[in-house]
């Protein structure tokens, strides 16, 4: 959402994580539905053997975090799922569309410490705003390969070529492959 249509409602950030099995999403959604909460925005995925859910949920009336916590605690007893809930202020609910170009940065190479840190520090120092990020350890135990894919909004005026240039030194230093591609959506 580009605007704050839901301003004034109760909003929470809910994080659920636990050993993967069929039914985690359904169980979570059931708790929220029963309470009359709306799932405004969410991203859920498998990470290793875990299933992780991150949701922004709203409720049309004043609603306490404790109430939500208690319901999740009751539902998740004995399931190994953990739930973390944070109350959001109105200004945390609004989605602010990035202003600059959107690009995809792919980084891969032999696994070593510091790949995520060095890449993201370099980007952060130039005000490049990461909007999505995934990492995965692949390859064999003898030759582990690290893959990092991220999407980032460049600050106004920065081009994809500039971002590529920015990461050139790290390519040598970390001995990894780095490429930056433009993925700014086309408006049709």
């Amino acid at each position, binding site marked *: *959402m*580009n605007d704050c249509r839901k301003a004034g409602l109760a909003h929470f950030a809910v994080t659920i994580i636990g050993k993967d099995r069929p039914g985690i999403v359904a169980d979570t959604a059931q708790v929220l539905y029963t309470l009359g909460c709306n799932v405004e925005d969410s991203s859920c*995925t498998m990470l*290793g*053997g875990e299933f992780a859910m991150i949701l922004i949920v709203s409720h049309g009336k004043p609603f306490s975090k404790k109430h939500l916590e208690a319901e999740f605690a009751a539902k998740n007893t004995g399931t190994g799922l953990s739930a973390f809930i944070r109350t959001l202020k109105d200004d945390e609910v609004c989605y602010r569309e990035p202003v600059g170009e*959107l690009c995809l940065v792919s980084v891969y190479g032999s696994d070593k410490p510091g790949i995520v840190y060095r890449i993201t520090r370099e980007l952060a120092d130039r005000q490049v705003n990461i909007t*999505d990020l*995934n990492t*995965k350890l*692949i390859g064999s135990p003898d030759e582990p390969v690290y*893959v990092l*894919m991220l*999407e980032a909004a460049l600050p106004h005026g920065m081009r994809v070529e500039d971002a590529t240039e920015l990461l050139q030194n790290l390519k040598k230093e970390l001995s990894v492959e780095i490429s930056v591609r433009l*993925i*700014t*959506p*086309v*408006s*049709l």
Partner: protein
Amino acid sequence: MAVQNILTYPHPILKKVCRPVDQVDAEILQLLEDLVDTMLAGPGSVGVAASQIGVALRACVVDVSNNRHGKENNHGRLLMVNPEILEASGGAVMREGCMSVPDYTGDVERATEITLRFTGADGAVRELRATGFEAVAIQHEMDHLDGLLFLDRITSLKTGLFRRKSYK
């Protein structure tokens, strides 16, 4: 000049298969003009289909000549009635957005070379070969004529890249 409102989903007309146009008459010429005006009024818009302005007929306009992806390779302003794709080849993924589905984008794979037949504003049937972004834009607009939105074409979640690898 008649800029029309762009209808947004869930307006039911956007999911309708549009009817072929019998002949290019004054009414159709007006429709094409409205489509062009509406396209030019939309910031960065490169095409509009009739159903997006509430007319369930097979007509759409495309013009990628002012877009950075299309300015080097285009046929200018295309006014198309009853367009059909005769041949399609190649494939590329672009992240698409649509004025009828605000605030959402998704990666869609489309052919990068198409041979197209359509009736122009002069009533004559034309064939042309479009490539690159122009081909993508034409396919996006033509999807509207079949009641398809880019949401029907998204091939993977953003994270799909990683999902084929299983743990051993």
